[in-house]
């Protein structure tokens, strides 16, 4: 129970504590400390798992998500501590708002962790909604026109998505009731999965359509993606990092759970083709939209849509290799994209703008920052020696043998995105220096930690990690 308490109770307690303390230097430290405790707790799960109960469940699949979630949560809290100091100096945020910000940060982590460990599909839904609402509040925190518009759009689209997901959840319960009986048994993963073969397939099909649209909105799949670029661009950068790196994964996790359920019911439709279609459309459209971005945070937000498309495509192709590649791609994307947003946050603070036309020659003016951004973009574009190259290679090669046309379309999307990212990188990192050149004072340690892990994964995947991912991939069927 102790690791569970570290992952759930600590963020919740920290949220209450942070609401009470006014000094932002202290609250930033408490924020980091609480996130570190949660990360340590999640590591304990690797060695010792609590027995599955009616409320909480730790298995091979969600443990990957939990460790990743708490790790990026921790590094983001470190980045955020440096970031907010600058926001306070420039007067973009006031100490009162920071108190609110830190409280919401921990509530968001609590919501995401709860969604990942929940054994009950109703509880999981509540947790996803909690995480969504806390991020809505943070996206609107600057109170500019754009921030309010982004938060409103995110709130409306997110709520509708979440409402559709609840409808799907109720339908799953209806499908389970004749088999499992009334009561909470019909909402618990382990019970659902054990009896899924006797469920009414038609009801389960309809449920999945609602769940795919509902949670798919939160994953950022085209055409339900409209909230994503605005929310990333107008909120504080640490929130952009956790949105891309974590919240999208949590929604994806929910989707994967229901996919497993559907696969266990022989008469139900195959969820794969639906996911492949949405994934491909997301990848291709987002890759094309990358070319017309002028705002640096929007650029990487569209890149997140493209990446989530690839990941959903991989899980849709399924099979041991497809699932393994999907999990690897998801992990690499979380680490890389949050590292990129950390660099982008520093860049935007130095330049005082997010417009790419007003920044340039970063490798010359800020060598450290510039080169980390180069490394991050090279990694996300899928070039060796970084880990995304490995996972994208796995996805493409495993799908080529089974569906050459689909794989070709995916490669097309990858190449289009690759071109757009490198084009932008050219003017951002090299070329004439544009914009202010004040030095960066915030720490770059979180960026290095993430990029080092991504580089390591590209060069050498430790066998225990591969075995671990393989177990999770098997669960996914």
């Amino acid at each position, binding site marked *: 129970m102790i690791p569970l308490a570290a992952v759930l109770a600590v963020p919740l307690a920290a949220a209450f504590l942070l609401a009470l303390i006014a000094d932002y230097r202290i609250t930033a430290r408490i924020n980091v400390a609480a996130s570190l405790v949660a990360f340590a707790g999640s590591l304990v799960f690797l060695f010792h798992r609590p027995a599955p109960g009616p409320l909480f469940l730790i298995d091979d699949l969600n443990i990957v998500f939990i460790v990743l979630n708490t790790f990026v949560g921790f590094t983001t809290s470190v980045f955020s501590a440096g970031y907010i100091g600058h926001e306070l100096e420039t007067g973009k945020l006031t100490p009162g708002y920071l108190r609110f910000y830190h409280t919401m940060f921990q509530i968001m982590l609590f919501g995401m962790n709860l969604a990942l460990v929940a054994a009950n599909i109703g509880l999981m839904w509540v947790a996803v909604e909690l995480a969504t609402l806390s991020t809505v509040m943070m996206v609107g925190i600057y109170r500019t026109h754009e921030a309010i*518009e982004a938060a409103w759009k995110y*709130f*409306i689209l997110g709520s509708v998505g979440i409402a559709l997901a609840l409808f799907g959840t109720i339908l799953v319960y209806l499908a389970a009731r004749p088999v499992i009986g009334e009561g909470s048994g019909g909402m618990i993963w382990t019970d659902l999965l054990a009896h899924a073969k006797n469920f009414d397939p038609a009801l389960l099909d309809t449920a999945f359509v609602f769940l795919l649209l509902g949670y798919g909105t939160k994953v950022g799949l085209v055409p339900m993606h409209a909230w994503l670029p605005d929310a990333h661009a107008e909120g504080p950068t640490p929130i952009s990092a956790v949105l891309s790196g974590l919240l999208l994964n949590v929604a994806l996790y929910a989707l994967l759970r229901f996919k497993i359920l559907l696969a266990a019911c022989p008469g139900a439709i195959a969820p794969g083709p639906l996911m492949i279609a949405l994934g491909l459309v997301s990848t291709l459209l987002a890759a094309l939209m990358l070319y017309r971005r002028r705002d640096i945070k929007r650029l990487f937000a569209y890149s997140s849509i493209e990446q989530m498309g690839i990941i959903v495509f991989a899980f849709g192709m399924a099979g041991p290799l497809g699932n393994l590649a999907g999990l690897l791609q998801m992990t690499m994307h979380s680490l890389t994209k949050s590292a990129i947003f950390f660099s982008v946050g520093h860049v935007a603070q130095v330049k005082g703008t997010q417009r790419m036309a007003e920044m340039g020659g970063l490798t010359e003016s800020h060598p450290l920052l510039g080169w980390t951004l180069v490394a991050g973009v090279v990694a996300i574009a899928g070039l060796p020696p970084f880990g995304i190259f490995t996972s994208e290679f796995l996805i493409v090669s495993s799908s080529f043998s089974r569906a050459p046309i689909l794989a070709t379309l995916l490669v097309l999307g990858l190449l289009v995105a690759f071109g757009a990212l490198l084009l932008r990188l050219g003017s951002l990192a090299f070329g004439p220096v544009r914009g202010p050149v004040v030095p960066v004072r915030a720490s770059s340690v979180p960026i290095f930690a993430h990029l080092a892990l991504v580089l390591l994964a590209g060069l050498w995947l430790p066998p225990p990690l591969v075995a671990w991912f393989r177990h999770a991939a098997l669960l996914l069927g």
Partner: protein
Amino acid sequence: MGLGTMGLGFDIAHMLAGFMVLASFLLLYQDRLTALINVLRLHGFILALAVAWQAHIQAAPALYVSAVIALSVKALVIPGALDRIVDRLGIHRNVETVGGIGPTMLAGMALVALSLRVMLPITAHADPVSRQDIALALSVVLIGLLIMVTRRNAVGQVAGFLSLENGIDLAAAGARGMPLVVELSVAFSVLIAFIVIGIFLFRIRERFDTVDLSALEAFRGERQ
């Protein structure tokens, strides 16, 4: 519940769910904010009745709690608060809608037909009360979505969203034996959501002097 009482119990449940769809149609064509909120109040009230009736025919006392929550939150507190917001912002004027009333109503009818067409065949093996409830609840959800897309006003969109939530509550109540924890949290989340909505309405007002979302859209997308 014995099968003998099935007939009347079923008819009343069916009728109440049907009234909710009707109230959704009323919401669909309201063009004044005060009237819109009044219909929303009616919507919440019918929901409370429908849930209470489900509690009775399912002999599920826990659902009475849900009915009380629906009555207090969705029929009293939220519409009351919306009224106050409209009062304070002084926006009693007409609501601008996208598209005329005729096409919108036709679209609403098509959505009801669609949800009956989708839900009735696939729930053929479920018990008849949940079956009707789910099909009509889906109609309420879809009309709620339609209300949201046909309003250009933030309060109008909120009304659409709340009626959508009511539809989901109806579905949850119709699903026999569904654990109460879910309904409680649904009610809870609506409350939280409403707080968020309230804050945003005031922020939008503060920034734009209007809750008309077309004013907001001038700021969408990338700044040049």
